[in-house]
């Protein structure tokens, strides 16, 4: 509506017109709709010609979609003959990896990889390089992210020295330095360079210091099975082996396991690549969260799970919240209830009774070790509560004797509570 004060008027337009969008270069009913259509063209143009990685905007088209393609890695990232195993995902190393690790590991007969080359596993783009600094002004190592297409990223490929092409990337790049070590051991500062550097399969990325194989982020899929999915990044933690071409996938599947330097020990229980999802609703098995603590990091939390190579072995993976019980221990659980409620498999702990554990074996990457002398005579009590058994009370006690009978078990004020 317009209000005129004279036959010839100059006034502020003050009317509103809302109508369905109309095609570009056509007649528009209402200047508002014409402006919106013009804005849409500008937005589409910007979206088609610019991309963003970790919030950094590049004057380059977005990476192409992966579509439904899974065979995205076409070349071996490591060709050195000392590369003999891939440690499945789900390994724990508390407190940093209290929950099952969302990545695999490169396994070398030498244990370490001082002079081993890392190559691009496929055509794609290096999207990020993190230079990690310890004491001194020279980087102690680098961490590389590689994307074969828009939805998939192979993260945290670590090297001691960076290929020249990555050290001085051509094309747009953005670097940000801080005193944050990105949670890598020994790092006290870092410089994060976001880029969109094209590489070909087999191109050298760096040399030495290879440890983590992944994690894989794939926004096309979501992990399922967590009791509280909202606590987790459901796009992260897929098996890297599944992204190779069939021949490489078969070769790498055959080396899923661990080696102790002389002997390869395969994982034989599906999924062969392991899993980070071990929650079992209505039981004590899986991930437990310390109330009020953030996640990530893993540090204050607790995982009652099975070993990533020997799934028949139980693993206590305890962060920093249970007094006297920080670390990882294996045990050989009873696979059937025998009315003792002692050393039961976590999947059998499914009511509100108190359960007791008194066998704590040193956890090695190649299997359970000998009893931990520091915990001989200690017992661990745990008890579920809540309508859906989503609260766990747990306490390490030092009676100096094994569990004994259930009538002697009682929590003290040292007990700690976790939630699902």
């Amino acid at each position: 509506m317009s209000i005129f004060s004279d036959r010839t008027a100059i006034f502020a337009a003050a009317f509103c017109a809302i109508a369905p969008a109309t095609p570009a270069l056509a007649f528009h009913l209402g200047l508002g709709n014409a402006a919106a259509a013009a804005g849409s063209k500008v937005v589409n143009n910007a979206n088609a010609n610019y991309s963003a990685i970790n919030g950094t905007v590049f004057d380059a088209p977005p990476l192409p979609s992966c579509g439904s393609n899974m065979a995205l890695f076409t070349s071996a990232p490591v060709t050195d003959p000392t590369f003999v195993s891939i440690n499945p995902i789900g390994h724990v190393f508390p407190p940093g990896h209290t929950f099952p690790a969302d990545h695999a590991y490169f396994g070398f007969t030498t244990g370490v990889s001082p002079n081993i080359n890392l190559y691009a596993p496929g055509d794609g783009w290096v999207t990020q390089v993190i230079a990690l600094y310890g004491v001194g002004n020279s980087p102690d190592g680098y961490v590389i992210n590689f994307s074969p297409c828009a939805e998939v990223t192979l993260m945290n490929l670590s090297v001691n020295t960076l290929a020249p092409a990555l050290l001085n990337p051509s094309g747009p790049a953005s670097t940000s330095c801080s005193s944050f070590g990105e949670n890598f051991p020994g790092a006290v500062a870092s410089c994060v360079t976001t880029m969109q550097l094209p590489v070909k399969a087999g191109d050298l990325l760096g040399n030495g210091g290879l440890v983590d194989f992944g994690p894989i982020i794939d926004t096309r899929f979501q992990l399922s099975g967590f009791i509280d999915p909202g606590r987790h990044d459901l796009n992260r933690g897929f098996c890297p082996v599944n992204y190779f071409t069939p021949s490489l996938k078969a070769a790498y599947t055959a080396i899923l396991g661990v080696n102790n330097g002389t002997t390869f020990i395969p994982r034989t229980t599906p999924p062969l690549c392991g899993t980070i999802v071990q929650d079992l609703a209505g039981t004590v098995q899986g991930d437990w969260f310390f109330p009020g603590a953030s996640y990530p990091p893993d540090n204050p939390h607790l995982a009652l799970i099975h070993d990533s190579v020997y799934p028949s072995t139980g693993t206590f993976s305890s962060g920093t919240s249970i007094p006297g019980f920080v670390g990882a221990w294996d045990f050989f659980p009873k696979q059937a209830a025998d009315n003792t409620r002692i050393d039961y498999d976590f999947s059998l702990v499914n009511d509100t009774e108190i359960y007791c554990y008194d066998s704590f074996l040193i956890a090695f990457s190649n299997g359970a070790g000998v009893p931990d002398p520091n915990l001989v005579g200690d017992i661990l009590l745990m008890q579920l509560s809540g309508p859906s058994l989503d609260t766990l009370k747990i306490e390490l006690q030092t009676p100096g004797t094994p569990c004994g009978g259930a009538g002697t078990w009682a929590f003290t004020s040292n007990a700690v509570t976790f939630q699902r």
Partner: protein
Amino acid sequence: MLTGNASSDVGSVQAFVFGLRGYKFLPERHSWRFYLGAETAYVKTSLHGINTNGNPNSVATVSGFGDTSGYALGAFGGVEYRLLKRLAIDFDVGPYLIGLRERVTGVSGSTLDFVGNTAINVYLF
């Protein structure tokens, strides 16, 4: 103020337009009178309901992407029909040049379109 909506590849674009119009009316004949005019306006648009179609590298993931601002310049000719002594309806149409710049990427563009406007006019004096 004018508002309008249009769809883009990554969400709905909503526009706000603040402007001034100038009119030159021709003599009235049998309740009809023609007019000519020009308009200038400030244009601002924003993106709503962002959908990156699962592409984590989409620039639309960046906060503030899709905000544009710019101008509109137009000329128009139209006709008014007087329904009552102080009440009339009118319609005009003309070419408008609209130029906008996206805030995050700096991408800019201009379009020349024909725009029609309708109005109900109430004469107070």
